[in-house]
């Protein structure tokens, strides 16, 4: 009996000494923060190939694709966090390698804690693509367009030459200057 009482007093005394687990301000620091934690999305517009599969699989239609003024790869995902259920399927289907273009795991957990009403009216993961990136992409596109035109011209010229060959005429321009120039561009 006395032992029991002693035991219990000891236990109570011990528990007084142990620090309370509730000593963290969870607004700024999570109690448990694993690597796979599905938090706020991060979208990498540079690697995104604009395949639309994250939009297609999203079970709550939280993802909308933002259009860029480009011809190819011209959509990037934006996520409405007030609709998102953080299932992470968009990350699963993202085909880019080695890094996925849309990532939730390891994302921020404190999406709400920082802000108040003003933040919540715009509760989105915006994918802000800088104008310089768009410009450089436009330049690239222009370059590829020029390349393609050149290739097409070359092909047309070759076809013409072949036609002439078939007709029995000797090829003049097509074999001499143009192919070398085009070859360099192709490589």
């Amino acid at each position, binding site marked *: 009996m006395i032992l029991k009482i002693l035991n219990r007093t000891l236990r109570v005394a011990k528990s007084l000494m142990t620090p309370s687990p509730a000593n963290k301000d969870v607004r700024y620091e999570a109690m448990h923060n694993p690597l796979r934690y599905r938090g706020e999305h991060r979208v990498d517009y540079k690697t995104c190939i604009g395949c639309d599969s994250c939009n297609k699989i999203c*079970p709550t239609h939280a993802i909308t694709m933002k259009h860029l003024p480009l011809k190819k790869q011209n959509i990037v995902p934006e996520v409405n966090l007030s609709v998102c259920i953080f299932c992470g399927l968009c990350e699963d289907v993202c085909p880019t390698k080695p890094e996925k273009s849309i990532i939730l795991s390891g994302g921020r957990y404190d999406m709400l804690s920082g802000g108040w009403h003003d933040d919540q009216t715009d509760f989105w993961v915006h994918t802000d693509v800088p104008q310089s990136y768009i410009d450089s992409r436009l330049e690239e596109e222009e370059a590829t367009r020029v390349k393609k035109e050149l290739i097409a011209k070359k092909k047309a010229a070759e076809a013409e030459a072949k036609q002439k060959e078939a007709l029995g005429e000797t090829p003049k321009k097509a074999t001499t200057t143009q192919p070398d120039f085009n070859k360099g561009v192709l490589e």
Partner: protein
Amino acid sequence: MKNLRKIVEEFSCEYVENYKKIWIKAKLNSKNDLLTLANALKKEGLRSLSTVSPTDFLEDHIMEVNYFFEDLETKRNLWLKIDLPRKVEECKVESLTPLFPSAAWHEREAFSMFGVEFLHHPDLRDILKSEDFRGVYPFRKDFDWGAHEKNQMQNIQQIVDAFKKEQEENEIELDPDSSETMLNWGPTHPASGPIRLRVHCDGEEVISIDPDIGYVWRALEHLVTKKDFVGAIVAVERLCFMDNINSMVGYCMAVEEIADVKITPFASWMRVLLGEVARVSSHFMGLGGFFNNIGLHTLGMWNMDTREFFLDFLESYSGARIATASIEPGGVRYGLDMSMFDELQKALDKFDTTVGEVEAIFVKNPTMKLRSDNVGILSKEDVHEFGLSGIVARASGVKTDIRIDEPYAAYDELDLKYITQEGGSANDRFMMLFRDIKQSIEIIKQAKFHIEKAVAEGEMNPTKDHMVKVPKKLPKGEAISRVEWARGEVLMHLVTEEKAKSPYRLKMRAPSFNHTMMLNHLLKGRTLSDIPLIFGSLYICQGDLDR
């Protein structure tokens, strides 16, 4: 089994075939045979009707009604189909409720969602759907949800009007000189959750109870058909957040059966492990809920503390504490990092250190025993008749546990025994919950040991073995799967079309539906103070009640 087959073959059937180990699948040619067959089945011992699940085939103009008969004792089951004409006026069939009381609400559900009329049903009213759906059948393939949602304000007005009318009628119908009243228990009662019990009482004494359910009706069965086979898991897991893993396991098993895919041993063991962790975390809430409803919140708080350790493991594994979405067709969604087992071990240690105190203070609590020992008694007969399952059935001494009856995942390799409790009172159900937790912890330990051993020996690769590829398009087919969920038996009936990208129909039979049906049976003639106690002891979750 042979007897059962013989009985079915006596009737004119399109086909009778064996399905899985303990099922017979048959299709009746004529709906006129249904009642005689049901009578014969009942005599043979198949006393519970698990669920009634209509499938709407729009192009064939057929409403196919599936009946799932079960025998909880000898584990023989029958899957019976009947074709009905699809037109609402002709879509009628004889009700089985007089023979199988468990069918009562399931037939009401089929009536409200698909418009199948069950003749001679004692109480064929709408259930689940709100007043604005009266006269229309939302799960029929030609129902236009968009058009319905356009009149939102009008719909809300309709719901409000109906509620006011009900209250007015109550006042007119009840004798003003007597002490009879209609009480609304819920949906904002602290112990109720989103459910409303219309309690017709005379002073303290309960005359009858009519639950009004559907407050969290999300039409999950319809939502699933709008998603692809992988995306559907997020709808299926929302059956109830407390044990979300096992519901996904059931759905994935059905998909895998249609796709004819076999999962790896590692995935099946992970399904056992994760499923039991989810079961434990659900049972913790159940135990706490029982005491909360009596009015003591300490156990609930203590359990939340221990439960958090188990949720930490789930969070480390899947990235989310509760809506884990971690089981996918083809296996489990993530590979396992073996260091996550340290966290699981922490949770198990925490359980081992606290279980003694919980047992001494709460489980053996004399006050609780006095209060709940002779309340809400369910006999074995009730369990069979009303198709109860899970801990509610086992608390009445019925040996039923899908993990043993029809082993799935890796449960057949485990050392498992039926644990039952005689008596069937509220106290027995509480005890059953507690013992079930202990059993689950044992299973977790076994599964953990097995996985660790197999990984150490190189039989399993925890980072690569977790998934087998399942094709995006499935062939035409249908499958059923059953899992032992935290609250009881979940039966999933999945139908797919040719080259399907999404399920054509998924029926989820959830145990709380049957358990809520028992409230009237248990509370008739008792006092008002018993309502929270019995409600708490039935371990009802509104998530799977409404779906």
